[in-house]
């Protein structure tokens, strides 16, 4: 019992921080431009593929360095030559455009790298386990993911809080028009933010590829959860995204570990569920089975009762 809690806690933390790496860029873009970038997870996947290709030629570390840079550049170009063009038609075409990019990225990845999962491996230094607790191993690589995520979080926070660029970006999040009036090049800020945001997703892709698997479905697997984080945490709130990431990471890993269902609760009340009971399959569905559902349920409930999210200042 105790070891399950410890390991769920650690795994949830790793997963949650990875989610934060993805959603931090997404929430910056969302709050500044009002566009929910549906292709964000696509860039995450693209980066994993680039990192794989670079890693087989130059090694893992070069992949980790260059893949996010390339993806960030591609992201900036998508903003410059795609999104900016669609912007004048309104928010709905923008959403549709990013949906199209997501669709295209998934097909493009299959076109170039094929449909199978790639053997994107961890570097040798990060193989093996860091410590063994109650007979279960905790891999070094997960600790590495944890450290990278935390370092990126600290860098991002300090850039936003303590530099002039960060000041302008924070201003542009809330009041892009006023920032434009003050003489800053708002389209350039948008482009750079979009590029940096996708690069952050790129880092997440490059470090997640070896553990979560590098395959064409990796974007749609994580994409939905990412929107949940951004919306649950609140529009434009990095703090909210941070809390929501950890919450969802922890809830999902704990839910997977728990094999109880409603029928167990009924059993405590001396009600036995059999196959003849009305709506039998609802009562016997275990918590681990519905774990993938929980985030979406959280999002829908949040959107109904508080569309601004946990810490969001305004509605979309």
């Amino acid at each position, binding site marked *: 019992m105790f070891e399950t809690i410890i390991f769920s806690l650690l795994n949830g933390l790793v997963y949650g921080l990875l989610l934060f790496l993805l959603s931090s860029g997404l929430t910056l873009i969302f709050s500044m431009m009002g566009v929910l970038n549906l292709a964000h997870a696509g860039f995450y996947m693209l980066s994993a593929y680039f990192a794989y290709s670079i890693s087989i030629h130059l090694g893992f570390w070069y992949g980790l360095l260059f893949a996010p840079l390339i993806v960030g550049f591609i992201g900036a170009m998508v903003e410059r030559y795609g999104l900016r063009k669609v912007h004048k038609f309104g928010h*709905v075409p923008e959403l549709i455009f990013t949906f199209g*990019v997501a669709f295209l990225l998934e097909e493009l990845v299959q*076109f170039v790298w094929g449909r199978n999962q790639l053997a994107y491996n961890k570097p040798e230094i990060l193989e093996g386990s860091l410590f063994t607790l109650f007979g279960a191993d905790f891999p070094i690589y997960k600790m590495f993911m944890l450290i990278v995520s935390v370092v990126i979080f600290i860098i991002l926070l300090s850039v936003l809080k303590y530099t002039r660029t960060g000041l302008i970006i924070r201003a542009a999040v809330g009041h892009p028009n006023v920032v434009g009036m003050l003489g800053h090049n708002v389209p350039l800020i948008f482009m750079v933010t979009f590029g940096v945001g996708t690069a952050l997703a790129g880092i997440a892709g490059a470090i997640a590829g070896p553990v979560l698997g590098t395959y064409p479905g990796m974007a749609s697997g994580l994409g939905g959860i990412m929107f949940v984080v951004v919306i649950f945490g609140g529009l434009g709130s990095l703090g909210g995204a941070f809390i929501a990431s950890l919450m969802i990471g922890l809830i999902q890993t704990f839910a997977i570990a728990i094999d109880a269902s409603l029928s167990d609760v009924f059993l405590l009340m001396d009600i036995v569920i059999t196959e003849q009971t009305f709506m039998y*399959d609802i009562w016997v569905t275990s918590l681990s089975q519905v774990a993938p559902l929980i985030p979406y*349920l959280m999002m829908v409930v949040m*959107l109904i009762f508080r569309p601004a999210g946990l810490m969001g200042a305004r509605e979309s």
Partner: protein
Amino acid sequence: MSHLTRICRAESVVRKKRLRILWLCFAVILLALPLVTSNFGITILTQICVASVFALAYNMLLGQGGMLSFGHAVYFGLGGYASIHLMELVGNGVPVPLVLTPLFGGLFGLIAAFLIGSFSTRRAGTVFAMISFGIAELVAASAIILVSFFGGEEGVSSDRTMGPAFFGYEMIPQIEVYYFAAVWFFLATYAMYHFSRSPAGRLANAVRDNAERTQFIGYNPQKIRLVSFVASGFFAGVAGGIFAIQYEIVTDSNLNTAASGLVMLQAYIGGIGYFVGPVIGAIVMTLLNTVVSGVTDLWLLYTGLLFIGTVLLAPNGLTGLIMMHTDAYHNRKLATLIKPYLLGMLPLTAAFIGVVSLLEMFSHRNEAAVGDDSMLLFYIDVDISTWFPWVGFTLLSLLGLAGLRVVIPVVRASWDAANEMQILSNSTINNESDS
């Protein structure tokens, strides 16, 4: 004043007459189409009927109500599941003619849309889109867990031939299924058209364009959105019902987010600003899905490229491209466009053949077995192990793209010329009526 009203009335009579002729043509085309195609063609036509009803229903939200849904396949799928269960009941002796199945699917979709829409339509825009997405994920995941209604991963299936015959009509051969689908397609399209012209449809337009102002006039935007949403859910369920009859099986792949994305693609590629847009999108996408997918594995890539191209270059969709020519038509200048368009087709075709060939050769190099170097491209045998086709098709695409750069201004200029006269003739008409 009375003169003006008389003109208006006369015009609307003409318009109504023309509309009636259009509906008649539509019915005749639907009836006559199977006569000119093969068996495979009839299957595709049936698919087009289903896809068109669904895409039209979707466009009641996106095009007419301004609500972007990422989860509309939920109502299609629920309608389909309900219809399969109804077919099963009919097979067990419940006396309901199976031709009414889509109505049952529609009612099921309507109830589901009412339950979900009662809270999701409170806001439009991104919030609505995200709620629809969340609901779609929830329902799609439930479809796998809740086996008794959804049948788990293998879905639920039934048999359309078990029910009582409807005036000697048993829906065993594919052609009868087609006529069943075509009749429902016609009825649904007729109903949706008149919905879009009804006060409820017009108010949906108003809420789409400016919800605040509509509220000021005294309407509740949420109620108006809900009405559109429920109606759209009904017709999505109808489409699901036709689908259930045709395939006799419904699985979770009919209501997941991929299915929802596909219907959005259809509506948008066709053109969400026009009533017929989604039908054109459904036709194009169904052909891509059935015919092109038989020729190449890359059809989804082409679909994505077509979609991105539409969003960037033709935001009014394929219908918008056709409708761009109404002014030229009224000016009787359409013929002047034939020559420049033919000129434009030349580099376009070159670029198309070049780029598609490069993509196909690249894909063949990746996918085919080692040593299998020959492939058929546009009726030409190509050996991809030599450098010649690579260089040749690259040159062809570059040449085509360069040619496009030269030709596009010419085409645009002649298009402008064909439309410019309109402003002149319009003003002369106005002058006449003023005097």
